[in-house]
């Protein structure tokens, strides 16, 4: 591949999007770390927010429930951080003008799969959290809440679309590489 092929000047509109997405990545990563920490460390927060988030009304918020809930949140948080890291690196490639590079394609593909994983994991983690929060209840009042919301459905759909786009991008990268061989 001729070295002159990459990088190419970035369109101004994409330059702005790169800045916005990077800022959102940082904000998202900080929130992903801070919010679950705050939530699982605060029984008041659990009591007020868990009914709408998990779907349980009667719960026993003790240290075991808090530790279990915190441990359960580690998986989606880790996957979310991985997705944001891949997004950050994808936009680093875009910022360098390597829009059709193999690295950009790999980051897009990993981000899409991480998003799909997060979307599929969300209902499972909510169900497990409902068990963790009601584990201290008397027998018969422990609950397993299973639910798939519209947001979960949309997230799965979005991830599937992104995976499809990444597959199409692979063809675009192949064509771009072939084109670079021409002078």
């Amino acid at each position: 591949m001729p070295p002159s092929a990459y990088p190419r000047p970035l369109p101004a509109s994409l330059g702005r999007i790169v800045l916005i997405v990077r800022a959102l990545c940082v904000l998202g990563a900080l929130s992903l770390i801070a919010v679950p920490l705050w939530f699982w460390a605060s029984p008041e927060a659990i009591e007020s927010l868990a009914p709408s988030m998990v779907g349980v009304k009667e719960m026993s918020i003790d240290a075991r429930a808090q530790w279990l809930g915190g441990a359960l949140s580690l998986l989606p948080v880790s996957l979310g951080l991985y997705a944001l890291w891949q997004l950050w690196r994808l936009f680093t490639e875009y910022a360098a003008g390597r829009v059709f590079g193999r690295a950009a394609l790999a980051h897009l593909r990993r981000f899409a799969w991480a998003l799909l994983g997060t979307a599929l994991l969300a209902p499972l983690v909510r169900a497990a959290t409902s068990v963790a929060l009601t584990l201290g209840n008397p027998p018969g009042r422990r609950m397993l809440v299973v639910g798939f919301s519209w947001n979960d459905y949309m997230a799965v759909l979005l991830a599937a679309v992104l995976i499809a786009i990444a597959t199409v991008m692979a063809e675009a990268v192949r064509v771009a590489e072939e084109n670079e061989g021409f002078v």
Partner: protein
Amino acid sequence: MPIVVNLDVMLARRKMRSRELAERIGITEQNLSLLKSGKVRGVRFDTLSRICEVLECQPGDLLEFRPGPDDPPEA
């Protein structure tokens, strides 16, 4: 590759340096060097016509087909 690029021969005939040709046809010296050494997958008609225009020659003066071991002639 049985296609041989005779660009350096034409440059010598016209007493022109690679840098000048690259500037006049609007490609980088690096890409021109790759073209001269035949290390490209292809040449765009646009580039070829600009080279012919500047060097006042025909495409046949620049490109030559020489059957080699990679591409044996038909029996």
